[in-house]
């Protein structure tokens, strides 16, 4: 019991400063791995963005779309074998001509690895853009509802209840269908439906802070509502925004995969959902590497984010511990 209390105290101390949180996250082996994985994905996505921009600016076919008729459906095993034989100097004519494709090629001879990189780019676009829509919306409404109470709060609760009663995925699909197929539809569909969770958490937390002494003091000093919310309450609920971001990001990525897989999402670009859609037809012909690499790419990103979300929640909110040893 005392050990638990001591740990709790330590954690609260950690919650007080951002650096303490980072140290705690870095201190645990599994979260350290997750941080590294997320950073690696960021780098990959940035690389994908750069190559996408450059090929567009130079007006050439990007390398991930380059069709290679001679090397269709090359499995990674064959590609690696040819590469190793080339290194040993025992390569035949066929091996010598084989370009190195670490994750194989698809039915048009396009490089699966490069397409996965582009998928990561689109996943980050979706994760970040939907958060940019949903989190400001949720935070603004949640703060307003929690702080002002009364009619404002009723309006916020009403809006939350209305959006929450829509059938989730179907509503997202309907919005992206109405907004037009493409990335914009996905941003709007996911962003305009998932702010409810953010709003509810922020509202509950703001309500707790509204009557605390420091807010009353600020009110006595005659500060405007705007200033109290932005300068006093918001910093105290900001950790929730970080947690919500880490929860929303993987779910937005998964939803994008789903929407693109159905065919009303990203068009003509190698997003992970499109790649799965293309690959699932060929799975029956024994082309497993395409689906396997996309699956692994999604899995690692989502897993890392899920674990990070748990760790963040444990750091900031000892009462809500979901991780180990609670």
């Amino acid at each position, binding site marked *: 019991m005392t050990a638990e209390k001591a740990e709790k105290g330590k954690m609260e101390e950690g919650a007080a400063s951002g650096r303490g949180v980072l140290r705690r996250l870095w201190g645990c082996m599994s979260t350290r791995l997750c941080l590294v994985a997320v950073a690696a994905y960021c780098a990959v996505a940035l690389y994908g963005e750069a190559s996408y921009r450059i090929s567009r600016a130079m007006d050439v076919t990007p390398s991930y779309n380059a069709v290679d008729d001679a090397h269709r459906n090359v499995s990674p095993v064959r590609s690696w074998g040819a590469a190793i034989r080339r290194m040993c100097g025992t390569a035949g004519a066929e091996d010598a001509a084989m370009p190195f494709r670490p994750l194989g090629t698809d039915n048009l001879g396009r490089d699966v690895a490069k397409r996965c990189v582009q998928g990561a780019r689109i996943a980050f676009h979706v994760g970040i853009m939907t958060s940019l829509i949903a989190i400001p919306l949720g935070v603004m409404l949640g703060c307003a509802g929690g702080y002002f109470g009364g009619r404002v709060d009723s309006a916020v609760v009403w809006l939350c209840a209305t959006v929450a009663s*829509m059938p989730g995925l179907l*509503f997202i699909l309907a919005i992206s269908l109405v907004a037009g197929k493409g990335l914009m539809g996905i941003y709007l569909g996911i962003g305009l439906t998932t702010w409810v969770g953010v709003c509810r958490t922020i509202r509950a937390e703001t309500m707790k802070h509204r009557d605390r002494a420091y807010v009353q003091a600020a009110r006595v000093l005659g500060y405007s509502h705007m200033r109290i919310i932005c300068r006093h309450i918001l910093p105290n609920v900001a950790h929730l925004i970080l947690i919500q971001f880490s929860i929303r990001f993987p779910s937005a990525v998964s939803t994008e995969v789903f929407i693109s897989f159905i065919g009303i999402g990203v068009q003509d670009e190698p997003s992970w959902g499109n790649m799965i859609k293309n690959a699932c037809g060929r799975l029956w012909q024994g082309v497993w590497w395409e689906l396997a690499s996309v699956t692994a790419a999604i899995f690692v990103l989502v897993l890392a984010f899920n674990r990070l979300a748990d760790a963040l929640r444990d750091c900031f909110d000892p009462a809500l511990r979901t991780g180990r040893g609670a």
Partner: protein
Amino acid sequence: MRRYILRRLFETVPTTVGIVMLTFVLFNVVGGGSAAETVMGKSATAEDLANFDAKNGYDKPLLFGRWAEVRQDADKADAKRAKAGKCRPHEFRTEERGGRTVLLQKNDGPFDTQFFNYVSDLAHGRLGWSEEYQQPVARVLAQGAGPSLSLTLPILVCGTLAGLSLAMACAAFRGGRADAAILVASTVLMSVNYVVWVLGGQFFLAFKARLFPVWGYESAFCLVLPVAIGMLSSLGVDIRFFRAAILDEIHRPYVRTAQAKGLGRLRILVRHVLRNALIPVVTYVSLQIPHLFTGSLLLESFFGIPGLGAVSIRAITSGDMAVVRATVIAGALLYQFVNLASDLLYAVLDPRVKLS
């Protein structure tokens, strides 16, 4: 009790109004102009588009008024329809708006607008005509609800039972290896994409191993694999929620009292902790009940179950807006209804609810 029921009934009014308004904004205000193109495709002629608009009421004013902007070929289409005796001819006039000429059409009265027609259609249960199925939408929905339930109800029941028992195991061995293993497994289960669950399950278990039928809705056996996949895909989230709910109770004083009385661990867990932990669990599960009717989008279309999920996917890919709209509204209204029912049930079971 009567006052509570009345209050709770009254509370559903604003949300229902909100649902109607939200769907109207989405499908008529934002999507109304482009609905014809979405449904008819790029090859449709301007006259076809005008006909579609007239048939679905998209050529009426949105909220209020007598004149609405329509497609340029609408008067030709209208003249044809009137000649064929399908409707009486409308009045048309042109107007300069922002440097371009638009064609305006007069409606039948100030309340003959998209919004009022929409509300009255909803009130009468008229959900429109499905272009894809060539049937009234209401019939399509009614046919789909049964198969959807036959898939989603077992998923909910089995999934909740499995999740609860695993969460109990976690709580029994909390801090130990079994707990850690189940937790790690649930995080891993959570991170596998839903699409991959469906694809992988169908390919490996049904196609490669030939354990289950790949496709079909003939016997109960056909449902075993989709149910298992649906269960597994939601198991990770469930376990973590149930475990948190149980662990919330396990540090309460009454548990210590029971331990001090010398009761066995299993008995404390089942008789004392579980009963109290069931309150959040029941809330969590009852929130999923409304979604049972709309079914599971991917599972149904992949395993050939003719439920509402498969209907919605087909409607979405073919751009059949009437069906999409009807499923969204039906889902939202059902959510209201089930929520109301479960709240009232709570009030019957737990008298404290009425006071708060």
